[in-house]
């Protein structure tokens, strides 16, 4: 079995385990980016072409127009339903990245939008496309990570996780974050996308000398200078770079522990 097959198999086992344990109370977050689109592809494989649970898009209203277009197109092509979660109340109040700290904006438009959805729909497991190599904090994640009723990540007391035995014990109003692609690196993702010929938002490809390495909300993402206009070129470029992927993300720059705070507040 080759290396990408091994990564894929591990992910598929985690996905099936989550569904086996939480059945109809399972959902997955799809940001429309490369990682969660890879996750979506793996979910499809795990269930022989079907996606048996809701696919959730957390819409801050500030995403790139290309992302909305891609979202609707792929949903139609692969035949799955997307639940769009928006914090309408805060959006109506004009919440945005210019209103106070960026941390507040992420908290309201992402974390709280998800909170409202989980409360409403009663999800017990949410699949997320995060990876260990994204950030020092993410390097400490488990595959199955319990979150309490306040959405807090009790990272000082994470349960043991070994030999593919995933913790799934739920206290009242808790839920699990499940991370099926935790072991993929950024380069692995691109190699997998290449092998599987996955459809992708073209913001990742270079236009006029710039491309996005990581996409999210328009005001908080900056492109990097890069001539890589194809997946092959991106793979080549990544093997040489010493810049990290999130370098273009505003969130990580505000404060050293912003990521930890966002994570502990339940941000994905």
């Amino acid at each position, binding site marked *: 079995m080759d290396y990408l097959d091994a990564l894929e198999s591990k992910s598929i086992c985690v996905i099936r385990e989550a569904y086996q344990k939480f059945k109809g109370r399972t959902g997955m977050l799809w940001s429309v980016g490369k990682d969660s689109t890879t996750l979506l592809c793996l979910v499809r494989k795990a269930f022989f072409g079907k996606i048996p649970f809701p696919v959730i898009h957390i819409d801050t209203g500030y995403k790139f127009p290309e992302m909305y277009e891609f979202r609707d197109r792929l949903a139609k092509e692969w035949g799955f339903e997307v639940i769009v979660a928006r914090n309408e109340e805060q959006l109506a109040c004009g919440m945005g990245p210019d209103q106070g700290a960026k941390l507040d904006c992420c908290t309201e438009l992402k974390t709280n939008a998800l909170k409202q959805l989980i409360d409403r729909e009663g999800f017990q497991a949410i699949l997320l496309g995060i990876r260990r*190599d994204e950030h*020092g904090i993410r390097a400490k994640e488990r595959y199955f990570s319990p979150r309490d009723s306040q959405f807090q990540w009790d990272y000082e007391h994470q349960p043991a996780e070994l030999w593919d035995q995933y*913790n799934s014990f739920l206290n009242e109003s808790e839920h699990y974050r499940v991370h099926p692609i935790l072991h993929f690196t950024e380069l692995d993702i691109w190699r997998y996308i290449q092998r599987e010929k996955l459809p992708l938002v073209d913001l990742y490809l270079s236009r006029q000398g710039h491309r996005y390495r990581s996409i999210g909300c328009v005001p908080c993402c900056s492109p990097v200078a890069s001539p890589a206009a194809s997946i092959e070129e991106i793979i080549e470029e990544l093997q040489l770079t010493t*810049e990290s992927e999130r370098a273009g993300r505003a969130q990580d720059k505000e404060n050293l522990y912003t990521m930890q705070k966002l994570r502990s507040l339940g941000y994905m």
Partner: protein
Amino acid sequence: MRPFPIVITGHVDHGKSTLIGRLLYDTGALQADRLAEMRQSSQDAGKASEFAFVLDAFEEERARGITIDTSQIYFTSARRPYVIIDAPGHREFIRNMLTGASYADAAVLMVDAVEGICPQTRRHAKLLALVGIKDICVLINKLDQAGYDRARYLEVAAQVRDLFAEFSGTPFAIIPISALTGENVASRAREGGLSWYYGPCFLEALDAIDTPAIEERPFRFAVQDVYQHEDGAVLVGKVDSGRLATGDQVAVWPAGAAARVRAIAKYPAPDVGAASYGDAVGLFLDLDRVPARGEVVAGEPAPETVSLFGATIFWFADCYVSGRPVVIRCATQAVAGRIELLKVYDPAAPDEELDPESLNIGEMARCRIRTDAPLVIDPFASVPELGRFVIECDGVPAGAGIVA
């Protein structure tokens, strides 16, 4: 190429996190912004560059100067890619150390040259042996603090050999280093205090470990779930051991009913014809009954079906009192049972025999486990995936064990 997973273990403060930070830094593998972040956070804490902060990313870890949870970081040497797993050295975080070690094929055991062997050095060495990690590289660290004293290095190295002899092991290298200065980490320190040492540096030793070959083992596939498919029931799971081909004769345990493999599905292919170790596949069997999660599809020689078996266990939760009900999780099986403790000991002080009625965090025991329903197992040495298990107490993983 699959990154080679290696876990860094040892007593608290012996320099594990520093070693990894240093290795990444000296080989230029540290991404620019991670390096800047490490510098900034060290400065904020009023320290010179604290290499441990590359791994110790939690605010609490940096404030307290300790590692609380295990983390993984990727690194590529001239020979191959690695995933380096940092582990905490406190007894109270031993579950996190074990979590990290469970992913590793090889290990480093760090020993402070000044302090010598400490309780967690012993505990970690025994635990690595228990989970079957055979390739262990010992680093005698902080030689700078020990005045680069060769006699001290030899003394600690002898203690290390004695420790390994307790479980019939041998470290494949014992290297004097300074994680702080980087001597003998990524390159040999030919000049300066360690010039009396002629052996390989840490990175060379690491690159010399051969990737363990996947051994030929009997076929095992623990059913994870069953889906209704247009072609009938499909059993999903991963190949826990061995290999399988379409048309093979297998048996489904614990009943032992014979069956033939009709197809091995891997979407979008309806039949890939064969599957090997680690493959997540769907099996279509010719069998008049649909098996359930926890049943084990197996080849020859057959696994054992038991409701009483001997084991060595390791406890990483709060106190366990004899007789309390537990759940044994082995592959996809989950069975209620009870532990009959025979001999309880602290791997950090193996000569003392402890109260056989209770188990505390960090202790090990020889025991018998009695289950309410049959369990399909193998000896750990022949099929690791069915020879090891996690013990759950009140819904939470509390211990781990090996079928003996």
